[in-house]
């Protein structure tokens, strides 16, 4: 079943067009990636989907039209873990995580908090610490944890490993595997690092200067000459 | 970065309109020779127009919103009062020196202001005006009116002329001279640099504009012009006092005038100032209501016509003329 369906998306910054007719779908339960170099429009795409930017075109989510305001989008189960994290720097780790569940009224918030702490034990050790005192890797864990606290049907993850040390990157990578296996969560990842994207995802879209220029399963695209030369470096 | 240079398409109808207004204002004393109240009000309007234009070059063009323009007005005014009482120099020299002292005041403010942005800067200018007010109230009344705090009476030394009509022409001439100079400046490379700083200071800097230099220049120019208006004001009323020169209301009124007429247009604030002064002086029977009306109108303009009335009218007029000529052409075909 199609969970996310983006159709003919155009985004303008003033007169400059940042996205041109972007269309793609994400199936329920799938791990998909949008890859592309810096400035290709990945972050713009995610910001448009999560309601931070005005756009033209259609976005369907779980068979319905996606609402337009960010808080309604969060309510419908589409959660965006943004590039640059946008954490609440002067609040504690615990407050940040709990704010992730801001829209929820169910009784399983505590249980989800346990889940996040299982994924990232380091956060439990530092739950009282203010977020701005954490290392970059720990902050990224808080960002992912905060998104998970919203109990996403679809998680948008924008460059989760950008600027992190290799060891932290593999830690995050393992956590993504765990999320995927255990919770069968639908994830859409945006990555510059194509190797990382190919490692995790079933389906890949390649974005260049605001347009989708290649799409297919990871297996198919691994054999694509252009992608091999320009993005996989092998 | 985009430096949006204004289109060079001259709008002749507007130029013609301005010329007609100019001729009309030149003829006012001919038509109302007995009405010295009207002339007095129009002199005030010209002074306020100069002050509003000086605000516009600093705040409307260079984007450094000043809340304390009475600081420059007061510096110019007091310099005039002092010099004319102490030395009795000629008015032209004294008025120019009033401008120079206020320009120096501008440099004085610019020094700390260069480190400040947005609201901090506005606050700084406000503080400067309040501080000057307090300082002047400490003046000993030796050369002034005994008993009045910091007031200087300089009649007859700083009386330009007893002929109100002549004084009106002086004020009109000065206003037009300054309007022409500032208008030209605003269209020059300097004006472009000011606009670039207003629109995006980082980008302007990245584009190689020496923002510190241009901001300092904006303060000096604006200070000079405001100082000149303050100097002329003292020649008009024949005295200088903190309450007449440094009233916070002046600083608010110039903002109102610029907002009404159109910030960043130089010519717009002239109309705003005329409207303001005419309402203020002619609707005195309304008491406090006239200020209520003025501020309410300014707020509505800010809200609904954020570019100001003059630019909006100009746009409408141009559209109307274009559509009119378009129709005529169609009829011929």
């Amino acid at each position, binding site marked *: 079943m199609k969970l996310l369906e983006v159709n003919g998306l155009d985004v303008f910054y003033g007169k400059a067009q940042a996205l041109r007719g972007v269309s793609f779908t994400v199936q329920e339960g799938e791990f998909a990636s949008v890859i592309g170099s810096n400035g290709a429009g990945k972050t713009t795409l995610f910001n448009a989907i*999560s*309601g*931070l930017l005005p756009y033209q075109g259609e976005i369907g989510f779980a068979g319905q039209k996606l609402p337009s*305001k*960010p*808080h309604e989008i*969060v*309510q419908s189960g589409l*959660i*965006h*873990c*943004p590039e640059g*994290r*946008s*954490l*609440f*720097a*002067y*609040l504690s780790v615990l*407050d940040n995580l*709990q*704010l*992730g569940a*801001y*829209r929820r009224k169910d009784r399983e918030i505590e249980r989800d908090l346990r889940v996040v702490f299982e994924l990232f034990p380091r956060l439990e050790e530092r739950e009282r610490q203010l977020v701005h005192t954490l290392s970059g890797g720990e902050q990224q864990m808080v960002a992912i944890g*905060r*998104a998970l606290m*919203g109990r996403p049907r679809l998680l948008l993850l924008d460059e989760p490993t950008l600027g992190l040390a290799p060891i932290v990157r593999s830690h995050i990578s393992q956590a993504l595997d765990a999320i995927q296996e255990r919770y069968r969560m639908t994830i859409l990842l945006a990555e510059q690092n194509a190797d990382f994207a190919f490692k995790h995802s079933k389906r890949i879209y390649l974005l260049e200067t605001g347009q989708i220029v290649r799409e297919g399963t990871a297996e198919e695209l691994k054999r694509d000459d252009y992608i091999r030369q320009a993005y996989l470096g092998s | 970065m985009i430096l949006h240079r204004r289109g060079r398409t001259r709008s002749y109808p507007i130029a013609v309109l301005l010329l007609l207004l100019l001729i009309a204002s030149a003829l006012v004393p001919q038509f109302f020779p007995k009405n010295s109240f009207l002339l007095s009000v129009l002199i005030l309007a010209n002074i306020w127009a100069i002050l509003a234009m000086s605000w516009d070059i600093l705040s409307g063009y260079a*984007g450094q*919103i000043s*809340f304390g323009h009475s600081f420059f007005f007061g510096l110019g005014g007091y310099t005039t009062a002092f010099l004319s009482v102490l030395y009795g120099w000629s008015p032209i020299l004294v008025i120019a020196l009033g401008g120079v002292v206020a320009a120096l005041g501008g440099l004085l403010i610019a020094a*700390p202001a260069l*480190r*400040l942005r*947005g*609201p*901090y800067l*506005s*606050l*700084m200018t406000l*503080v400067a005006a*309040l*501080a000057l007010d*307090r300082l002047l109230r400490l003046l000993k009344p030796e050369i002034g009116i005994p008993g009045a705090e910091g007031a200087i009476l300089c009649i007859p030394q700083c009386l330009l002329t007893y002929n109100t009509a002549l004084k009106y022409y002086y004020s009109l001439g000065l206003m037009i001279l300054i309007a022409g100079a500032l208008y030209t400046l605003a269209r020059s490379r300097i004006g472009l640099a000011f606009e670039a700083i207003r629109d995006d200071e980082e980008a302007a800097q990245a584009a190689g504009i020496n923002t510190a230099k241009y901001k300092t220049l904006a303060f000096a120019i604006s200070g000079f012009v405001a100082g000149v208006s303050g100097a002329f004001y003292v020649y008009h009323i024949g005295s200088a006092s903190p309450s007449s020169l440094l009233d*916070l209301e002046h600083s*608010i009124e110039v*903002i*109102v005038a610029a*907002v009404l007429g159109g910030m960043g247009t130089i010519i717009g604030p002239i109309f705003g100032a005329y409207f303001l002064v005419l309402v203020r002086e002619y609707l005195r029977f309304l008491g*406090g*209501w006239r*200020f*209520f009306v003025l*501020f*309410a109108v*300014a*707020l509505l303009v*800010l*809200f609904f016509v*954020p570019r100001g009335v003059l630019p909006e009218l100009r746009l409408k007029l141009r559209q109307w003329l274009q559509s009119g000529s378009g129709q005529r052409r169609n009829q011929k075909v």
Partner: protein
Amino acid sequence: MLILGFLISSLYALVAVGFTMIFGVAGVLNLAHGAFVMVGAYLAIWAFVILKWSLPVAFAFAILGVAVIAPLVYRVLIRPIENRTVTVFLATLLLAVLLEQVIILFFSAKPRTDLPPFIQGGFVLWGTSIPYNRLLAGVVALVVIGLLWAFVTRTKTGKAILALSMDRRGAALVGIASHRITLWVWAISGALAAIAGLFITSFLGIQPFEERVSLVIAFSTVVLGGLGSIPGSLWAAFIIGYAETIAQAFAPEARGLASLVILLIVLTIRPQGLFGRAAT
């Protein structure tokens, strides 16, 4: 004087915290904040002197009144133009002078001293006579600040306010509806301003242009404390409060001047304030 300084400082803190909250959350420097202080005082005078309501009812009416007016101002005036910083800045300035005129039209520009102290009498402590009313003002201000602190650090809405002031995008992405929270913040800010206005008026009286003094004090306080920082404002409020108290002991007409001097020093030496975070 030590105690009086402390009591007046806590009132300044109320004004300053409201001012800084609006800046922190909405990015708006509300130049009409002093006017909110004034409107609160005049609403109480209207209710007590003209409508002859009892004092507690008049106080409650004034606080509620400003708590309703402030979010209305945001909704009607500020929100449609909130992306244009300069326009908002000028709009709040014009609103402030407009409110002054409204008050002058209804009450004239004369000082009003007919809002009586909430409680009469006083006592003498270490040679200083302390009216009960001032003591009450200090206690109320501290309690209100304490409650506010508990509200923003303990409740969900309070945390959403803090979150919004720290990262707007992050707040949007966890589903915080910024406009609704901002309405709350304006309401709280207005209520705090009104409470301060009531007490200040009950000891000093009020006149329409006085609102500028309140604004300058609030502005100085938050600049000293660092714009947008609530703990910063609290500390700064006490510094400014003491400076004002000491200055007034020597020259009563200097109200507002001490804060100006401090402000000037801070602006030139450390524009981000004592507790300011580098860039906002």
